[in-house]
């Protein structure tokens, strides 16, 4: 998916830069930024296939099931009336998810759940027992220390391990 995005992005920006340079010559200097087309009816959905692809519960249910059959992956109060900082929370979440994906590479069994309680940032992750427990503890200590210094708030990791990825169904 990201490969697709990247190539179409490059193509489109090339096109746009040509268009905008022609526009620029007409004495107005405005550049246009745009992303690749992200259709909302294709987001976070795994399409039905031959039946050999295993999906977890999280992946099997589509975004319109959030609140009905799925919970939220990121929990904070900045979307309430009168609260601000929602955009910053989103950026932080994205960073934290990429960080966890990279640090515990190949060990994540499911999406990371991020909860904020006051100042405290709780990262809940389910891991496959790919590494020794002492290595897990090393990475946990490293992540907690680094993220708390980065975001200037206490960070806690709640980790659970399973033997294999929990398959919900095959699509």
């Amino acid at each position, binding site marked *: 998916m990201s490969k697709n995005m990247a190539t179409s992005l490059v193509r489109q920006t090339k096109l746009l830069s040509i268009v905008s340079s022609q526009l620029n010559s007409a004495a107005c200097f405005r550049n246009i930024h745009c992303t690749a087309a992200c259709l909302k009816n294709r987001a976070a959905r795994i399409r039905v296939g031959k039946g050999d692809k295993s999906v977890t519960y999280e992946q099997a249910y589509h975004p319109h099931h959030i609140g009905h059959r799925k919970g939220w992956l990121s929990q904070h109060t900045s979307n309430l009336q009168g609260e601000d900082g929602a955009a910053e929370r989103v950026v932080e979440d994205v960073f934290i998810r990429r960080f966890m994906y990279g640090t515990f590479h190949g060990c994540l069994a499911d999406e990371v759940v991020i909860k904020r309680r006051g100042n405290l940032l709780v990262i809940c992750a389910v891991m496959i*027992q790919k590494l020794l*427990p*002492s*290595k897990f*503890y*090393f*990475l*946990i*200590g*490293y*992540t*907690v*220390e*680094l993220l*708390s*210094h*980065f*975001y*200037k*708030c206490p960070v806690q990791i709640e980790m659970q*391990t399973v033997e294999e990825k929990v398959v919900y169904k095959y699509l």
Partner: protein
Amino acid sequence: MKTFLTLTSFSPTQKLFSLSQESGRNAAKYFINTYPKYFQKDYAQPHIPCLMPETLEAQIEEASEAALIERIRMRKVKAAVDLYDQLLQAGTSVSLDVTNQLLDLICFCGDHDPAQENVPEQRNEETVESSIENNNNAERIFALLSEPNTHSYSALIRGMVKYGAYSKAFSTYTDLLNNRLKADVQTFNALIIAAPEVKEKYNEKWELIVDLLKQMAEQKVKPNLLTLNAVLKALRRCGTLGKSQAFPVISEMKALSIGLLSDHYLLLVHELLGVGENWRLLGNDFQQNIYYARFFSLLCMMENIDVMLKWYRDLVPSVYYPSSNIMRDLLQALDTDNRLDLIPQIWKDIKQLGHANRQNLVEELLILMAREKHNQEVQESFAECALDIKKIYDTGDRGKVLLSWTAGSLSDLISVLLAAHRRQDACTSQIFFLFSSFREMLKLFKTHNRVPSEELLNRFLTCVKEAGEVNQAVELVQISAGFCLPETPKLIQRVQQEFELTEQQR
């Protein structure tokens, strides 16, 4: 993955996990301090200083006393010494307090920057070379002082003792006395620690220590807990003489109402441990383990069983995981006090602590269980333990055999099972189960090439007779014949007398 225990005491795996977590934290700290520019953005209101990267560079650049104080605070030994020399050359006088602080720093840190010593539970061994350097620097600065006071002397002496220049420490001490200054408690502690290194023979060492203590009393310096520790440590180096001297020392200290902590007088110690801050002196976990091991062994030897059990229930498994030797001692204590009915509980504990694969412990347990006859419920519980043990013997982890049978352990096991069987209203299913296990046992005897004893066979026979199983009896005789035991004819006689055999069986 094993379930993560959430107990506070440290088994070896828990220690490993906490150490690996700590090393992860240190790796993160290394990154944070090496690339501080990525961690400068401050989201927190109010500002949280401990979450900012460490600023290791000294702020104040010009040569002044404030700059020196700052470097001392940041523990930059070399920079501080250089700055001090600079200041003296420039002609500014440095106050006595600051010089004392500098001396403290040098003597404590041993003349190299302690920035590398962030890893816990590791103590870098100071090399002899650095100690020599250190002494030169410290002595040099000391010599530059116009009027050294008690503090400077004490810093110098403690530094010398810490880095092995024991005789120099004593000569400095005589200097101190010549200048008619009083030494403080810390100095005396250091000298007491140094005392065993200076003299050769045990009595001389002890005399030196007594001398120091007397001088302490003359100078009206109160000994404190560290004094006691130092004396006892020194005594450990004094051998047998030390042991005899330890007790009067301790009683004296008690008279001065100081808290105690030592390996020698554990019971007294433990009560005082509950008092106040003494628990902090228990040191790290390894020492704690040693302490508790010795404590328990003393307890087993000296006290009666109820006290022992009270301590056991208090401390295990919340504070301490006993080793298998301790469990053996505990079993022996139970034995002497005739409280063998507690064995099943102890067996549960043994299993939980993971000692169930230790051969001698399990054998001892079996011997104790098999030795005498007890009343019925006790025997039943013994039988359950015995079956448990048998399971462990048979099915090792993934096919590995953890324990190997010996003749003694096998027969003990069987006799325990037999004894439990002697119940008036035993239901038939139980009997059949026991018989099948007997047959297995006998097979085990064969397969493991062990020979059952005569007593065992006799008991088998009586048991079989009670149950009235004739076939079993014949089988028994056949097996014993297979072993070519001398008791076979006697057994045959018994069987013939006590059973009604058919012709075929005869």
